[in-house]
Each structure stands twice: as structure tokens, then as C-alpha cells.
């Protein structure tokens, strides 16, 4: 099914703008838990779907925001290409718009980038119901401010994404997983050493005394590095990386508990709050369950110039995102005001200022 609902959506946004009705933008709603809850009338994008343009030899794909990630990934796979940011698909669902709006990326992030790295252009509806086109469909474009990257991770607070153009990449010829029994500090030391070599890493995760490495590249290169690194090769059909990406590992199965996401320099030592944690991105992303108070966690992380957010909020938990500095608050407010003067687009989802 392919449908362009731009006109319908524009009318809905215009009406909401006139009436001052808050809108809660949703695709598959698979990430409804993420960010502050929005009290608003649902604006459903899931029927605004379809791949508008895909030219494998240009490495560019353009699709409507409601297009399921699964549909896009299946089409890319036919041509031996991938969305390098490995967007998480919670419960197997998720749309392209949601992936970009949340800005989240999977295990390949340090090597393959996030949505913000691969976005080339977007068509969006601002809070006045005006259709704007920013960026384009070419890989190098420095005309005007980079507003399309600004959309990535803005959680729908600046505009309703209608159509997104992305850079896609060739799928690796060969991928192999290695498993090393290493305690955390030893694993991080091993990673520091590998990171300085031209090793074709595409995943590095530590969990329960095991370091999981993923190598992606040319056959000969993957072979040579697998030998050099050693370790076991898990049974064929191992779905560790898929499960990590979509948070289906047992580690994540703790209903009702708060799950923290820490973003840090990879070699940052273990923080006090990290007793029960999973390291992804070679140590740059840490998933943590802890009973430390939010304030203490944010302080520990700030000491290393990182940041912490609540990904899944447990009962009685505080605001998911950290408070911004006064200058940043002012800038966010002014930017938000331009895109959404009436404050109707996902108000508050990214925190009180937006």
C-alpha cells in the first residue's frame, strides 16, 4: 500500500494550530515509552507510507515517514544494501519517521553512524501546517543551515516528518561474531587496543563476563582478524546482534524497572551506578539498571562529560532527560518557537522547554 497523505495531515495540523490543540505524533507507537508522555490528540502517520524513490547506484533512498522499517530493510536487502544505523525495532515494529525522530541507533553506531549521520533531506510540516523541504537527495550539500539533521532526535517537537531521504550503504560481504570470555576491565582494554588498528569491527558489546565482537568486511580481512583475535564463534544462526539491537536480550527483560542509557567516551572507567550494566558501542553506550537516585547518576556521568537519560521509566521516576544549561534552554526555546509557534507538536516530549 502506498499513500501520500500530505494534504490530510496538513489540514489536521492547521486545524490543531488554529484551535491550539496539542498533537501526539505517532507511527507504530513502538517507542511511546521514550521521552516525556504527551497529552495530545493522536496524529497518525502510519498510513502515510511508501518508498518514493530508491536508486541503489545513487546510494539514496527516499520514503514517507510512516513506511515500516521492515519494508525498507527488505527492499534494501534485495539490492545488497542496508540502513547502516540499524534502527531498533521494538516488538518488531517501527517506522522510518520514528527511527529518525528518535535518533536512536543500533550496535553499529560507532562505525556506521546514527540517523543524523545518514540523513540527506526531509520534507516536513511545521506547526503552522506549512510544508518545508530542507536538505536534498545528494550526499554533499552545504547550502543553508543543516536543518534536516536537526530533525534527527528532536522527537517530533519541531515538525511532522513527511518524507525522508537517506544515504544507504552496501551490506558487508561477510559478517562474523566472536565471543571472548573476559571480565569487563580486560574487555575494555582489549577494545582500546583493537580500536587503534584497522580492524573491521561493526559491533562490540560486553555482558556477563563475555565480550561479543562483530567483524564485517571483505572475506579475507574478516578471516585474518578472526584468527588474530581468537575466541569462539557462536553457533550459526546466532541472533545476538539482532536481539541487542531490538532489546530482546534477557538483560533488558525487567518490567517496571528503570533502564538508564549512558552516553560516554568509550574508555570511561566503571561508574558507581554501573554495577548492573551492559556495554554497547565498544563502551560508548551503557545500559544500566540501578537504584542510585537520578541526581547521583547524572553527576557521575557529567564528571566524564557524558550524559544520561532514562530510556524506560520505572514507577515514580523523575524526568527522563537532563536539564539543559540556561543558554541552551534559550536557544531551544527560540528554535521551537519558529517551527511550532503554538506549541502543538509533541509538546514537552523532549523535556519542558520543547
Amino acid at each position, binding site marked *: 500500500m502506498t499513500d501520500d497523505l500530505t494534504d490530510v495531515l496538513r489540514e489536521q495540523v492547521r486545524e490543531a494550530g488554529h484551535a491550539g490543540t496539542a498533537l501526539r505524533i505517532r507511527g507504530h507507537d513502538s517507542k511511546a515509552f521514550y521521552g516525556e508522555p504527551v497529552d495530545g490528540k493522536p496524529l497518525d502517520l502510519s498510513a502515510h507510507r511508501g518508498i518514493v524513490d530508491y536508486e*541503489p547506484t545513487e546510494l539514496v533512498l527516499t520514503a514517507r515517514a510512516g513506511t515500516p522499517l521492515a519494508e525498507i530493510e527488505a527492499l534494501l536487502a534485495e*539490492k545488497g544494501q542496508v540502513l547502516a544505523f540499524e534502527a531498533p525495532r521494538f516488538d518488531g515494529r517501527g517506522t522510518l519517521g520514528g527511527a529518525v525522530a528518535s535518533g536512536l541507533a543500533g550496535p553499529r553506531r560507532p562505525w556506521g553512524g546514527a540517523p543524523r549521520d545518514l540523513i540527506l533531506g526531509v520534507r516536513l510540516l511545521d506547526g503552522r501546517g506549512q510544508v518545508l523541504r530542507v536538505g536534498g537527495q545528494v550526499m554533499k550539500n552545504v547550502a543553508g*543551515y543543516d536543518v534536516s539533521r*536537526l530533525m534527527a532526535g528532536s522527537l517530533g517537537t519541531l515538525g511532522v516528518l513527511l518524507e525522508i531521504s537517506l544515504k544507504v550503504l552496501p551490506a558487508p560481504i561477510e559478517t562474523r561474531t566472536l565471543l571472548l570470555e573476559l571480565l569487563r576491565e580486560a574487555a575494555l582494554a582489549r577494545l582500546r587496543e583493537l580500536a*587503534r588498528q584497522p580492524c573491521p569491527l561493526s559491533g562490540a558489546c560486553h555482558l556477563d563476563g563475555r565480550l561479543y565482537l562483530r567483524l564485517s568486511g571483505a572475506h579475507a580481512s574478516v578471516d585474518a582478524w578472526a584468527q588474530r583475535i581468537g575466541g569462539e564463534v557462536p553457533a550459526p544462526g546466532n541472533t545476538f546482534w539482532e536481539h541487542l539491537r531490538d532489546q530482546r536480550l534477557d538483560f533488558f527483560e525487567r518490567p517496571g524497572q528503570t533502564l538508564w542509557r549512558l552516553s*560516554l567516551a568509550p574508555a570511561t572507567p566503571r561508574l558507581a551506578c554501573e554495577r548492573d550494566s551492559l556495554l554497547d558501542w565498544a563502551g560508548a*553506550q551503557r545500559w544500566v539498571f540501578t537504584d542510585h537516585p537520578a541526581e547521583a547518576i547524572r553527576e557521575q556521568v557529567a564528571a566524564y562529560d557524558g550524559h544520561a537519560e532514562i530510556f524506560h521509566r520505572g514507577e515514580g521516576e523523575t524526568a527522563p532527560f537532563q536539564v539543559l544549561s540556561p543558554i541552551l534552554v534559550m536557544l531551544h526555546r527560540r528554535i521551537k518557537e519558529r517551527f511550532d509557534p503554538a506549541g502543538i507538536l509533541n509538546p514537552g516530549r523532549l523535556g519542558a522547554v520543547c
Partner: protein
Amino acid sequence: MRDSTLEQRRHHLALRFADHLAPEFILMNEEERRPYECDGLSAYRLLPLLVVLPGNIEEVQAVMRVCYEERVPVIARGAGTGLSGGALPREDAVLLGLSRLNRILALDPDNLCARVQPGVRNLAISEAARPYGLYYAPDPSSQIACTIGGNVAENAGGVHCLKYGLTVNNLLALEIVTVKGERLRIGGSGLDSPGYDLLALLTGSEGMLGIVLEVTVKLLPIPQRTQVALAAFDDVEQAGQAVADLIAEGILPAGLEMMDQASLRAAEDFVHAGYPTDAAAILLCEVDGDNDEVSEEIARVRRRLLESGASEVRTAHDEAERARFWAGRKAAFPAAGRISPDYYCMDGTIPRKHLARVLREIAALSEEYGLRAANVFHAGDGNLHPLILYDGNAPGELERAEEFGGKILELCVEVGGTITGEHGVGMEKINQMCAQFPPEELQLFHAIKAAFDPHGLLNPGKAIPTLNRCAEFGAIHVKAGDLRFPHLERF
């Protein structure tokens, strides 16, 4: 201030700056200001009101506070190698030279990053990182001279963007000073930061939103080996198809460059790279990685290029030959300078599939304007650099060259591309912005500017044209082949 003469303003400001900077770093005399009159786009020149050369962040803050109080515009400048006039001075503006802020503050091999001041040269970062087996990937052709602060301002690219991305993909954090002189940190030590992605917004903002005073860049492991193939084609279209075939094959080259006959002949005459001068076009395809990977990849590249109709494919036997293959491409601009008194370098990006059409139309425009053009092309990412050859001493030729260039950029927009891939808009392409963006998008850009700089003091008049300017320029907004009001006749 507003009614006083420029001379009075100069003296008044110099006095105020003297509270914060040593006198030798406040340049007032005409001969001291003269070296700053232009950047790499030397056809445009203006003397700045005065030049200040602060040596640390506190001095920059002090300068900005004075300028903000006095409502004097400020234009930041790094090495002045930019090609679009982004650092072109104004007679009523302070030129803020950041070249003294040239220290590498921290190199952190464990976290694959370096924290540097804005006046550090691009290549100096890679040189400092080399002992750790690391380097900084974006490599604009001016990397020996251009500074990282300027790279951030322009979102600089280079020949390796297809695989390694632009400046924006290789940054972790920025420390900026706002128009009011406040310090602001954007980004952090991790890969993600809270709030909107202001790091992306600042990158490529051409000094219009803030002054970059510290940059944290990502470092990558130096590839173990690099190999390059040179392929000759009898036909430009075939060369363009070969690029598409390589990509379809799943090959992601580190660099993929095309030169047309005019540019490869000029380069060959200049540096004797051994290029086949009877070819209509050549492709240079570079692959990098570890030893095994490169051997496997270069074999695939070679086979694919031959299957796509290359009349000849050579692979470099050693480092010297690889350097020679590249020497011609790297000398393409000066080579044009040898066969013509002046040349004008353009910088559009197009969807690659339209290459043949765009080159045909450039040839037609070349006839029409009576000026020769040579084309070099970052073929992997669609970034085209036509070089228009002209003689600045011949009356009217510069104007003709500029008009010809403007037409090329409008053509890029028409086929779905953009007026600048990596050089920035600056002063040079400000009129063509009107062709690329409709009024509502230009208004959005102005609103973003106003969020950071409500009085319009940071590099005013660059990068984003006013709607009035567009009205005067009379641009017809053409996007992806759709002409507005298609029922009206156009002459």
C-alpha cells in the same frame, strides 16, 4: 556609533580592545589590514574596519562583548583558504583572526579523539595522531593550510567523503562563544547529547551562529594499506556508468574521482602523471583498509571497471606510482591556472545519474559564453567542480565567467542537486541560494540565525540572502525540474 565615520569607529574600538589585547594584536593601519582583504576567493576584496588577533578564549570573549555592546559586526577567519568568500571582510566589521589559537589541547587515543583550538591546521591533527596509529579523516584539498575552525564553519569535505563522511560526521563536541561573548559547550565526550542536535546546526553555519573556539574531533585508525586504480574511458557517459556499476557491485571506495579530457590533459602537461591523454575521461578509484581487504577489493574494482567498458585499467605498483596517479588530480586546479590567466572553480552537487546531461549542458554553455571549462568530479558523491577558464584582464570576462558559473549552479539545482557541495555559500553563491530555496525556507534560515544572533552581528550578509535580495536578483525558483507557474512563458 552609527553616525560616526569609519575612521572614528576604528579608533574608538581599538581603544576599547586595548583594555583586553596587547597592541600588536590590534591591526589598524591599512598595510596591516591589507593581508586580510580577501580569502581564497580573491576576486572579492574589501578592507576590514580593523583586525584583532586574540590569543585565548577570554580575549575572544572580551572582543565579542565589546562588539556586542557597540553593535559592530564580527567576521571570524581561520587560514583564509575558503573558496566562497565566507571570510570576506566588511568595511564596518571587525575581522576576528583565530590563527593564534593553534594548540592541540589534548590527544586521547583511548577514546579516539582530539581536542584542538580552531586555528590548528587540518593536517596537523593527523600528524599529531600518527604516532598512535590514528588520523583525522576529512581531508579538504587545502588540508595543509586550512584550519579546523574553518572546516567546521564550512562543513568541509574532501576526496574521501563517500566512505568517511564530512566534517559533521567526524566531530564530537564544540566550544563556542556566542555573539554576546558567552561560552557554550555543544556535544560531549559520548556519541549522543541531550536536546536538539545543535552540533549539526553549527557545522557548516559559516560563522553566522557563533564563534568556534574548541573542536573535539573523532580519530580513526590509519588504514594499513591504500591502493588506487586508474581507468580510461573513450566516453564520459561510460565513465559515469562505470561509477554506478561499482556502487551496484557493493564497492564503497575510499575515493572515486573523475576528470574530463580538458582537465586531465592540463594536469598531464603540468605534472606528467602518465595519464592517457586520448581518453575522454579517467576515473581514479582508491580503496583502503587492511592488507587482505585491499587486495580483495582492488581485484573486484579492476574487473568491474573493465566490464564497464574501460579501455585501460592500471593499478599502482607501489607508493610512488600511487602518488603519481593522484598528483594529476591534486594538481587539477593549478594546472588550469597554467593554461589560462584565471580560472573560476565551481562546486555543485548533482545526483550522479545526471552527470552526462550536466556535462553536455556545461559544454553548451561554454560555447555560448565563449569560455573554456574543465571538469573534475568527486564522482562517488556527485560533487562536481567545473573550472571556468577566463582572463580577468580582458574586459567583461570575469562577469561572463561569473554568469556562466551561476548558470551551472542553477543547472545543478534543476537536476535535483545543490549549489554547493563543500565550498559553502559565503558571498559567492548568495544569489544562487534564491534559485535553490523558496522564500519560506529562506525565512526559516533567517529565524535560526536570529535565535543565535538577534541583532545580526555575526558575519552579516553571507550565506543566506534576504528576500529583498532574491527579488532584485530575480531568480526563478526551479526545483527538481519543476518550474513555478509552468503555464507562463519564459524568455
